């Protein structure tokens, strides 16, 4: 129906002004069908207000300090670094670019499509994330790396046109490559054909060779960083050298690795110094991905991935994709050699190999089949006595970027050989030396030239206890050859072994001095060498005594140690049985009727074991059998909400609870401790702590299992001069650090300041309102 009349402005304005709850009237049904009145109405509604700004400001979720989970990437940073503009279609202005769209966000920052009005062209602008830009070191590093990357000019490297800073935020400008990344391509259309893979690999290797010539290592070769230009399918590598800039800057809190390490080389995973051959390993992983659609080293956790990169051989390509020819399998295997020395030595060499094969594949008759790469030796043997072997060490001088307990392998010592002298670097332990000679072999152990120990070794063997440090071991054996097998050195002469030197960790009796991280590493080593019983024994020790020996170990125990345990269980049924029996024991203890108040640690252990055994529903079953008061304390540990059966990383909308303990992998996704408190004020004096709880003043005697004195001491040990601030404002964080996860309630022991009575409050609620009150009235607890 065509409307025959229209309302005038004042009538429309009156309609807009009326109470929204009023019943729709005739005027509304008319406007809804009359486009002329709609247009008029819109003019009225839009007038005198900056709707563009409103859209920008409301269009992003605002950050809130009381949020339950951390937000590593500030969503509204994009709008906050942009200035307003009149340019049509622009989101805002950054430097001399009109920003047309946000192309992506990553660990390093934001990539935007910008239009350069002066040059009349589109560019990709990469801006260092503002949280990283606050660090002067990160800014300098970013600029420096970007500038050296800009020096690489090659058809297969995305050129960097500009490196600059805008209002203190460094950025770089690249041309927009219209096309997909290898990552997107494989995800969209599956693994690539052999010939396509070879073509792309050859071009990547060419690009790498050009960069390596300039002394630049990419460090982050992965499918997402290789772009395939539309139409011509030209391969272009992006993000040269930038990984390093971010690496340093993002290691802000307690050594968390940002991003997925699936394409790292073993030396990177280890935190060692790397060279250009690291990129070749990553290229091997990338080729593996192109042919199979998956990366070669996959695992549930970051730790698992690192572990596999360092220790495991990937499944053979042919077993995943039967079309992969033998020669390609061998090339990839060579690229994926653990030792850089065993890989191709230059990217140019790799490029040449792939070019040859590509030519052959295109014209099988016209171009000769290139030589088949040799099969690699199965095990490494040191051939000559002068050959020096370097093995990765956990205390080496590399760029110890990974925290020590993160380093996946457990190689103990650095051995190098010269003549019949064995140099070794070791942590504390026992050196065991056996001899095969008929007569006794004299052995001298020196440190810095000084004799530490002199031994005569017979067939019965001898041992020497050593502190951590570097030693040389000299023994008299002519024409000896030396063989290295894990942490055992065998010295051979005349086809027979003469002596064996083995490094042993501290014996198990010395419990007080054992560092559980060392024991755990030794267990990993045992697992790898097939010593299952020894591994299980060590893991059990860590499980039972780890936290006692090293308080900060509480975080390791339920995650990494259990993941080691599962690894061991893959090859050792006994280890699996043991884990299951511990699980059953815990289960029994938790649900037995005579325990109205169960031990939270037991429950957390049980949930962790369920998690690694992939039987999370059993956690929920057990939980549902508990006393409701216990449930109130323990829901926090559950893998998901028992009502909705859905994981709720933040707040479950149905039961209004958070389930943050789910899958604490490596801290990347780990939830922040909630900012809540039972108190509205806390005053820490020399000999007592006075709190305001429920509007009354008390002396605080203890929280949950912690007596106040102990809690204060531990907090001071951990936080230094900020301890009062942390204890008062970040009570839950303090508890988490101590391996205690109280959920939303705590038990308090208090003494009234008025009556001097002691009282005990069960399940005192912690709220963010209390905590905010405390936070706003906390001048007295600021660090001096």
């Amino acid at each position, binding site marked *: 129906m065509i409307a025959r009349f229209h309302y005038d402005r004042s009538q429309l304005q009156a309609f807009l002004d009326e109470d*929204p709850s009023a019943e729709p009237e005739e005027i509304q049904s008319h*406007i809804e069908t009359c486009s002329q009145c*709609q247009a008029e109405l819109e003019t009225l509604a839009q007038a005198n207000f900056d709707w563009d700004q409103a859209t920008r*400001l409301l269009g992003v979720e*605002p*950050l809130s300090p009381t949020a339950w989970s951390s937000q590593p990437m500030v969503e509204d940073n994009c709008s*906050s670094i942009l200035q307003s503009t009149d340019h049509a279609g622009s989101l805002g202005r950054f430097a001399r670019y009109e920003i047309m769209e946000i192309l992506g966000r990553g660990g390093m920052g934001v990539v935007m499509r910008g239009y350069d009005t002066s040059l009349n062209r589109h560019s990709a602008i990469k801006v260092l994330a503002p949280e990283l830009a606050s660090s002067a070191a990160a800014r300098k590093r970013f600029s420096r790396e970007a500038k050296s990357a800009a020096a690489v000019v090659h058809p297969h490297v995305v050129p960097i046109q500009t490196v600059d800073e805008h209002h203190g935020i460094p950025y770089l400008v690249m041309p927009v490559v219209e096309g997909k990344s290898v990552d997107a391509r494989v995800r969209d259309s599956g693994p690539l054909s052999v010939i396509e893979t070879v073509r792309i690999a050859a071009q990547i290797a060419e690009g790498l060779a050009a960069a390596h010539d300039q002394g630049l290592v990419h460090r982050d070769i992965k499918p997402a960083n290789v772009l395939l230009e539309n139409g011509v399918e030209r391969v272009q590598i992006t993000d040269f050298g930038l990984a390093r800039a971010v690496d340093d800057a993002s290691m802000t809190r307690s050594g968390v690795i940002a991003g997925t390490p699936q394409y790292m080389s073993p030396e990177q995973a280890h935190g060692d110094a790397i060279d250009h051959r690291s990129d070749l390993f990553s290229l091997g992983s990338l080729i593996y991905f192109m042919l199979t659609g998956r990366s070669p080293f996959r695992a549930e956790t970051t730790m698992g991935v690192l572990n596999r990169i360092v220790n495991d051989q990937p499944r053979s390509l042919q077993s995943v994709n039967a079309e992969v020819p033998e020669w390609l399998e061998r090339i990839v295997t060579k690229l994926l050699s653990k030792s850089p020395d065993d890989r191709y030595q230059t990217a140019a060499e790799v490029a040449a190999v792939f070019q040859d094969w590509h030519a052959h594949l295109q014209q099988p008759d016209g171009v000769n089949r290139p030589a088949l790469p040799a099969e690699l030796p199965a095990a490494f043997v040191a051939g000559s006595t002068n050959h020096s072997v370097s093995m990765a060490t956990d205390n080496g001088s590399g760029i110890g970027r990974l925290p020590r307990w993160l380093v996946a392998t457990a190689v103990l010592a650095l051995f190098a050989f010269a003549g019949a002298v064995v140099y070794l670097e070791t942590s504390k332990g026992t050196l065991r030396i056996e001899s095969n000679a008929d007569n006794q072999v004299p052995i001298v152990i020196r440190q810095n030239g000084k004799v530490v120990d002199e031994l005569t070794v017979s067939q019965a063997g001898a041992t020497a206890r050593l502190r951590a440090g570097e030693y040389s071991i000299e023994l008299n054996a002519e024409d000896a050859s030396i063989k290295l097998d894990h942490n055992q050195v065998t010295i051979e002469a005349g086809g027979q072994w003469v002596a064996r030197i083995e490094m042993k960790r501290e014996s198990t009796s010395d419990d007080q001095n054992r560092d559980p991280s060392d024991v755990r590493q030794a267990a990993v080593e045992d697992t790898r060498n097939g010593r299952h019983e020894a591994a299980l024994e060590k893991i059990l020790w860590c499980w039972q005594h780890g936290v006692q020996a090293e308080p900060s170990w509480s975080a390791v125990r339920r995650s990494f140690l259990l993941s080691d345990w599962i690894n061991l269980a893959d090859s050792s049924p006994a280890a699996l049985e043991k884990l299951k029996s511990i699980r059953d024991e815990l289960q029994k203890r938790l649900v037995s009727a005579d325990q109205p108040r169960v031990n939270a640690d037991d429950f957390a252990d049980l949930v962790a074991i369920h998690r690694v055994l992939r039987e999370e529903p059993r956690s929920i079953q057990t939980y549902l059998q508990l006393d409701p008061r216990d449930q109130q304390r323990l829901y926090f540990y559950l893998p998901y909400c028992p009502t909705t059966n859905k994981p709720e990383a933040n707040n479950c909308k149905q039961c209004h609870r958070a389930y943050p303990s789910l899958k604490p992998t490596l801290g990347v996704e780990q939830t922040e401790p909630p900012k809540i408190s039972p108190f509205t004020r806390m005053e820490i004096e020399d000999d007592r702590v006075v709190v305001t709880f429920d509007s009354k003043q008390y002396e605080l005697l203890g929280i949950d299992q912690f007596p106040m004195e102990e809690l204060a001491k531990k907090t001071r040990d951990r936080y230094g001069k900020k301890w009062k601030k942390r204890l008062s404002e970040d009570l839950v964080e303090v508890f988490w650090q101590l391996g205690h996860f109280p959920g939303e309630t705590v038990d308090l022991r208090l003494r009234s300041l008025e009556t001097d009575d002691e009282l005990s409050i069960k399940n005192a609620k912690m709220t963010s309102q209390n905590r905010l009150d405390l936070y706003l009235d906390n001048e007295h607890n600021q660090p001096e």
Partner: protein
Amino acid sequence: MQGPETRPTFIGKLADPTCEQAWNEFVRLYHDIIYRVARARGLQDADAEDITQEVFAIVSRKVESFDCAAAGSFRGWLRKLARDTAVDRLRQPQLNIGSGDSQVRQALEQRDASQDTATLWDVEVKREQLLRACDHLRDQFSETVWQSFWLTAIENLSISAAAKQLGKSEGSVRVARCRVMARLKKEVGSDDRSFSL
């Protein structure tokens, strides 16, 4: 020992109950703003919180010098003080660790930083204003009417897509959108109802 009732606290200094109410309102409103500006200036969560606290501490100290009896300008005074304090605090050198740069360069950077902070501040105030207005208005409209506005005006969905999603005619989406826009405009513009930011 001094009890909390006698100790001067942030709000304890404000003898006048209307001032105390204003202060509480002020904290509630500005807490998130200061925090967000600090985050946008590149601070980590914990540092941003610390800054927020410091700004309140500084402001509260200055509150003493304000005569609450001197009529209704306390809010305006607080508003300006908060802005100045935050801008000032976020300009302090420990945030921009200078090393080896020439003094001129440093001075330039600092000026940039304070201008940036001031701009960010105004943006965040505006955002807070809009958020509060939305909070207040949302319940007054039916969900469909509200979504007609939100999807098309904020999330930039086309009228036809929104109409499809909501199962409404395009005309009714357009009208609903205008009704919310008009109210929101009024809400943000009104100074009398709430503590104006």
